[in-house]
Structures are given as structure tokens and as C-alpha cells.
């Protein structure tokens, strides 16, 4: 089944660029014969470009020219242009791009209302065209930051479009949330306005925080340079690395962090692309991890962060991988799931791991985790045979846990700090279609969400009384 990523805004496109690069690397490692197969078709079309430009799709046989199934949207040209001039230029063509020059000025209203109405039709048309090339479109991925103007505003506009035009296709959003020290003053406004859209129109959101990514990068840096490990680390196994991909020199400071997010998406879709003894498709993730429509924010953690060049992997190492997935060091957002309430948890394992390894580790870790009373065995698992590049196995954990609440509460507080003083509001209200009610509705939506988490938290540790069963007349 096909997944269609759309990158919106600067952050989204930088992550997107890393994603396509690493996706190609992953498929090259697996697909030795150069045959265009089902796995590749999840993300790439196979096109014969000898006839110039955009040739017809080739569904079988040798790989000719791979084109990413993607949409790249930015209201500034810088990032997209760089992609088109870089080693990935042949993977995209002009029909997949929507750009402008002036940017959104870190203003959600500009992104959502102004550019939304301006480019809406264009975007729909290009989406339809891209979707037409897909044999079976299962999900959309939107990648954007929350704190800016384009990713946040136009990105959530696109989210709305997707729901209207393709109501049956799942919408996953990878959203990068701003930190407290974000240098964009209006990022709380942008984030909260975007949150309302995510609450109402996304099927699943994977919130990411730059600080967590940064911490992971640092941790790896320390490990690699400390000399403590005693063996060399496999370069291409680093979750932050671009080694082996088209981009051989890491130029930008964000590349390492963006690689982490790219790896997240690759692992998330691995079981849908590659075979395994217990497949986990994206629609299954949505089905199992979202017990109530608005509670769809998932904490993600990735392990391992690197693999040593040693070939001998004792099975203790395997269990360590599971423990690490539940360690805060491996999470892509700062939160404390162990001291909050799990609504559901998914474990997507790749590589040479069998069901007994899964079960052993679930049994081992369960006692230290709090699950909501109606989902005490709330585990969803997947086994994909193909490991990521450089690893013999890996694990992606997705948790629907009330630990995201503090992140949202903090966001609300930062928003209120500005809103009470009406700081910078005029920049937003100037934009056609933008009214004060947009703000009040957005903050209400966020408050309602926080309240839903509160209600669940209140059940934690309480007495467990199972509801009485139906009585049947004998």
C-alpha cells in the first residue's frame, strides 16, 4: 500500500529531504537485483524518462528511474531549490512542487488563510495527480513544524484538504513542536492554532521536539567520541547518520536531527513495505492506538541509536533494545510515560526477532508500566523481517500515553502569556479570513483535549471494578 508524504515549510522539507535520501538508501540495501517491487512502490514510482520528462509508470521489471511519491510545499524557495539542485534532484519533478517566494513570516494566518486560499486549488490538483499514480493509496504523511507560518498554517490547511478530497485515506502528521526557548516569539500562537486542526482532522500525530532530537545527537556524539565503547561504531547504523546515502557530506547542523525523524518514518512504514511474520500496516496503527478520536498523539521512541561493528550479538543485547525503547533517552519528545497512564502501546520490531522475544520482553516490562483499566493488555505488535541499514534488529515504540499532557499544558501557558496581553495579535487579525474567534476556538480545543487527558489520569491507580457481565436467562 502506498504512503504519500507531503512536506510543508522549511522544517518539513528539510526532514523530507533526509527521508527520501534514507529511503533510497534502505531500498538499495534490500533490493539487490534492481527490480521494481511492491516494497519500492510504497514510496516511489518507476518511470521511463528516456522519452523525456514525465514518462508513463512502469509497474514491473527493472528499475529505470525512481520518482518519489511526494509533494513539496514551501512559501519560500530556499530549501526546495536546494533539494532540486542536490543529489536528489532526479527523484522529484516540477509537478510535485508548490512554492512561492516571500514566506509566511512565521504567521499561521498567512500560511493557512492567505496561502491556503491562494494555492488551495493548485495543491488539490497536484495531490490528485500524484494520487492517480498510486495503485492503492493508504495514507498521507504530512511533515511540518508547528511554530512557524508555512508548515504550521499551510500544512494544516493541506490537512483539511486531504480530509475533504480523500476522506478514506489515513492522515498521519509528523509535527515538530517548538521548545520553550524558541526564538520565534509567536510560535505559541502558531502551534495552538495548528493544534486545533490536528485535533479535528488528523488520524494520528507523532509530536517531535527539537530538544529531544538534540539530546539524542549529543548522546551519540559523546558515545562515539568517548572511546568507552571499545569497538568502532558502524557509521551507517547511526540513527543520525547520512552515511551511504546520496548526501555524503553532512553540511547542516539539523541534518543529524532530521535523520532521526526520517528513520522514524522509515521504521513506521517498514512492516507495510517489507515482509514479516506479523505484519503491521499503517491503518492498523491508527486502529489500535486511537481509542477515542481526539486522543491520537503518540510518543515515539527509537532504538538502537547505533550498532557496534561487532558481529556477535548476545541475546541480552536484544532485551536491552526493548528496555531502551522505554527509556526517556530514546524518545523523540520529552515526556514521562512511565509515570503516566498508557492507553495503548505499539511495538514495531525489525530484523531477526521472533514472537518469543517479543513476549518475553512484554512480560518483563509490563509490571513497571501503568495501563488504563480497560486496556490492561493494550499491546499491538509487529514483526518485520528486514532490519534497517546497519542493524540486525531495531524497535520503534509508539505510545498513546497521558504523558503528552504537560507538553500541551505548557503550550497553552505560553499561548496565554501572549494572548492576555494581545501581543502581536494584529499581525494575525490583519489577514483576510482571520478573526478573534479563531484564537478562542483554538485555545478551547486545546483545553478540551487537556481535559480529556485529565479525566483519564484521574482513573490511574484507582480501584479496579470490572463492569458486571450480561446475565442470560438459562
Amino acid at each position: 500500500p502506498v504512503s504519500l508524504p507531503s512536506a510543508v515549510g522549511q522544517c518539513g522539507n528539510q526532514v523530507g529531504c533526509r527521508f527520501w535520501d534514507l529511503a533510497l538508501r534502505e531500498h538499495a540495501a534490500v533490493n539487490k537485483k534492481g527490480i521494481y517491487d511492491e516494497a519500492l512502490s510504497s514510496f516511489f514510482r518507476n518511470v521511463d524518462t528516456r522519452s523525456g520528462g514525465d514518462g508513463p509508470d512502469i509497474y514491473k521489471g527493472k528499475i529505470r528511474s525512481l520518482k518519489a511519491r511526494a509533494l513539496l510545499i514551501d512559501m519560500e524557495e530556499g530549501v526546495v531549490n536546494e533539494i532540486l539542485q542536490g543529489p536528489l534532484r532526479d527523484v522529484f519533478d516540477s509537478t510535485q512542487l508548490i512554492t512561492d517566494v516571500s514566506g509566511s513570516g512565521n504567521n499561521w494566518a498567512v500560511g493557512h488563510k492567505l496561502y491556503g486560499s491562494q494555492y488551495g486549488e493548485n495543491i488539490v490538483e497536484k495531490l490528485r495527480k500524484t494520487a492517480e499514480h498510486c495503485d492503492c493509496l493508504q495514507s498521507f504523511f504530512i511533515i511540518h513544524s508547528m511554530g512557524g507560518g508555512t508548515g504550521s498554517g499551510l500544512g494544516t490547511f493541506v490537512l483539511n484538504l486531504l480530509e475533504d478530497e480523500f476522506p478514506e485515506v489515513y492522515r498521519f502528521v509528523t509535527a515538530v513542536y517548538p521548545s520553550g526557548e524558541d526564538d520565534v516569539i509567536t510560535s505559541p500562537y502558531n502551534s495552538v492554532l495548528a493544534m486545533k486542526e490536528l485535533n479535528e482532522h488528523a488520524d494520528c500525530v507523532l509530536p517531535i521536539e527539537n530538544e529531544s532530537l538534540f539530546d539524542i545527537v549529543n548522546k551519540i556524539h559523546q558515545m562515539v567520541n568517548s572511546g568507552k565503547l571499545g569497538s568502532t561504531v558502524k557509521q551507517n547504523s547511526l540513527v543520525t547518520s547520512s552515511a551511504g546515502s546520496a548526501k555524503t557530506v553532512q553540511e547542516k547542523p539539523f541534518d543529524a536531527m532530521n535523520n532521526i525523524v526520517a528513520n522514524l518514518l522509515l521504521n513506521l512504514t517498514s512492516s507495510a513495505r517489507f515482509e514479516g511474520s506479523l505484519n503491521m500496516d499503517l491503518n492498523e496503527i491508527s486502529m489500535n492506538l486511537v481509542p477515542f478520536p481526539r486522543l491520537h498523539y503518540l510518543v515515539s521512541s527509537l532504538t538502537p541509536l547505533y550498532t557496534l561493528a561487532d558481529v556477535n550479538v548476545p541475546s541480552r543485547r536484544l532485551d536491552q533494545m526493548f528496555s531502551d525503547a522505554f527509556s526517556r533517552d530514546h524518545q523523540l519528545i520529552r515526556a514521562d510515560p512511565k509515570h503516566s497512564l498508557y492507553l495503548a502501546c505499539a511495538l514495531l520490531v525489525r530484523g531477526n526477532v521472533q514472537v518469543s522475544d517479543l513476549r518475553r520482553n512484554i512480560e518483563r516490562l509490563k509490571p513497571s508500566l501503568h495501563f488504563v483499566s480497560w486496556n490492561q493488555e493494550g499491546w499491538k505488535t509487529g514483526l518485520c523481517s528486514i532490519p534497517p541499514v546497519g542493524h540486525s534488529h531495531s524497535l520503534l515504540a509508539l505510545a498513546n500515553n497521558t504523558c503528552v499532557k504537560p507538553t500541551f499544558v505548557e503550550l497553552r501557558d505560553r499561548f496565554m502569556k501572549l494572548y492576555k496581553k494581545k501581543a502581536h495579535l494584529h499581525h494575525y487579525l490583519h489577514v483576510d479570513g482571520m478573526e478573534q474567534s479563531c484564537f478562542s476556538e483554538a485555545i478551547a480545543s486545546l483545553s478540551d483535549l487537556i481535559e480529556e487527558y485529565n479525566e483519564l489520569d484521574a482513573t490511574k491507580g484507582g480501584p479496579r471494578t470490572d463492569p458486571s457481565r450480561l446475565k442470560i436467562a438459562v
Partner: protein
Amino acid sequence: MSIVTVQLGQCGNQIGHEVFNAICSDVRGTHGLCSKKENESYHDACKERFFCEEGAEVPVARAVLVDMEPKVISQTLSMAARSGYWKYGDGSHFCQKQGSGNNWANGYSVHGPRHKEAIMNLVQKEVEKCDRLGGFFTIMSMAGGTGSGLGAFVTQCLRDAFPTSFLLNHVIWPYGTGEVIVQNYNSVLTLSHLYQSSDALLVHENDVIHKICAQLMHIKQISFRDVNQVLAHQLGSVFQPAYRAAGGSHYSRNPLGDLMEKLVPHPEFKMLGLRNIPQMPENSLAYSTFSWPGLIKHLRQMLIANAKMEEGIDWQVRPPPRGSSIPSSHSTNKPLHFNTSIANLVVLRGKDVHSADLGSFQDPSLYTSWLNPQDAFNVWKTPRAFNKYEKSASLVSNSQFLLKPLDNVVGKAWNMFASKAYIHQYTKFGIEEEDFLDSFTALEQVLSSYTSL
């Protein structure tokens, strides 16, 4: 008579493949411990039952493969072909790209009606290849979306299209913890629907087979493949050709019919459990000897004490003394130590099978009073050994075996339903709260019936 197998979803297809593998490998083996003539007779009976030889180089399994995503079927087809000993028919599979998302409603209400024609056409094709149709054997998991939801729909279609054919559903119960979060919902919906269309549900529990792999087969890193192979062995031990009557001269031609007739006297009681002993790693077989009295004694105690495998049998459990009234337990919370049976079938295969004495299984205190003990118990004895086991004994039982597991599943599902968690995912595809309630009611009825045995 031939059996048409319908493999549904990832689980159904993975298991189906192992079943045909096991059957084929058994037939090919020289370990039959019987005369060449006997072997050939077995071979022919097996072929007629499970394979078609329409001029192909290798026998073609009488099977229809259905899945809503392509990867598993693709793998299954190629693995079978690679074996060199058998394969699936070229046009015998149907798949889509989407999957069912572990959503029973999606499998049942969307995929079912949408693909009914295509799937039933494949079934019809397979049926037409049979000289005589002995019935359908469907394999599915009840935890996911396709096997469970689409499987329930297809079962209904099979019943409608072939009202007089035997229909046996092989249902896999997922691990208690963590395969699919909504597995209990899917299970409740599946079981309640199957109960209406199917003749009998033959159940295998992943947890049980897993334990067998760990404790009896001594497998360290147990994979689904390992689990499925043990399962396939157990199924093969029942469905490979067998003599129905003592001193029979030809193999029974109607295995499904025979099974149903013996084991399912009443439509309210359709849950069948399966036990097979001995089970051990292949390389231990050569060093082990078995006696029929020993095997039969163990199997009987496994029945009485509801033991899932040969290790850890509770020998303290005894049938109630004759003539005493058995206090019927109204609450399923009380542990039911003694497993009451409605009917049992024992299938013995191997050396000196005719010397085996099964009088202990005819003890009336094992059974409810509805049937004469002679009718409640049946045995099939076949001298031809199965799958390298010098002696092999299987028990198919319509008893309280599955009472506790069913109660667990219903209980967990009900607990989740009370909070309304995940219900929106089902109503999205047309399964409403009332549908859930109907299913719960139906299963509480089944539980009540089995409890009051």
C-alpha cells in the same frame, strides 16, 4: 471426497501453507511402518482429499487463498512452489492492497460484500475440480481484521452457497497479551457470527502451542513458523486418512462429515478443542519409545483435567463418582476442575494400533447424559504411522475445554466495551453498538450452555 481449504488473512495463509507442507511431507516419508500397499492406499486417499493432479508436475493443493494485502500470499505461493513437492494453483488466490487494518467491521462490512463475487468464484472453481465435495475447511485468526471479519463474511457465503456441505472453521486464538489491542472485540464479533453459519469451530490457542514449543519441543527462539508447524502437525494427525471403523478396509472418504456427526450433536455446542501427543523435537524421536496404554492414560487425564499439553497434567482431578449429582456451577468464577464432555473422538496412528484399549474413554462419568457412552465416544485407528511418530494419539473434544478461554475473551472485551474505547473505529464501517451487544449476548449464551453441562 475432497476438502476445499480456504486460507484467510495472514494467519490463515501462513498456517495453511504449513498444513499442506506437513501433509505432503508425511505422505512422502518412508516411515509409515506399514506395507507398501498400505502406504499407497494412504497416499491415494490423501491426494484425493487435499490435492488435485490435473496434469501438473506436482500436486496442486485444493485451496483458495484470500488476503486483503499482497505480501503474505506472495510469500506463501513462492514458498510452496520452492518446495518442489506441491504447490498452490496459479489462479487460486485473491488479494487486495489495503489490508483490513485489524478492523473486523472493515473486513466484514466493506471487504466482504465488495469482493464476495471474486472470492466465491474462486471457491466455485475449486469445488468443480472435486469429484465429490467433502466440505470446507477455513483457517483464520480471530484477532485481526481480514481472517476474522472477512472470514466471518466468507463463512456465511459458503453456508449460503453450499447449504448442505460440511463447514469446519479452524480458528486461531491470539496470545492473551499483545498481538492486537482490539483482538477481543474482533474475537467476540467473529465467534458470534461463525456460530451462526459454521458447523463447528476447531480452536487452537497461540499461548498453548507456544508452551508446547518451549517446553516440549525445546525451541529457544520461538517464531510464528515454529508455532504454525506444531499446529499443522496436530491438524494433520486428525485429518490425514484414517480408518473409521475397526478392521476397516478402506480409508474413510468423509472426514469432515464423520467428525461433525460424532462430535456436534447439538447446534448450541460447536466448540472443539484439539490435543495431540506425544510432541517432541524430531531428533529425540529415535530415542523414545511409547506405549499405547501410556499414551491413552495421559490423553484421558488431559481430557479430564483440561490439560493443554502432556507436561504438568493434574492427576488429582477425577471424574465424579457414578450416580452422584454434579453440582452445576452457576458462576464461571468457580474453578471447574473436572472437564465434562459432550462427545470425544480419539485418532490413533501407528504401530500395533489395534492393540490399543480405549475402554477408559467410554466411562460414562466423563460425559453428559444426553448421548449413550457408545455414541459419545468414537475412535479411529490407523496402522500407518504419521509424520515420523511411531505412535501418535489425538483427541478432538467437544467439552468444557474452551470455557475458560472463551470467558476470558468475553470478559476482556466487555470491560473495554463498557468504556466505549475504540467503538468509533467500528461504527465508521457500519458495526454499531447494538451489533456488539448482540454478539455479547450470543456468546454469554454459549458460555452458559457449556457451564451447565
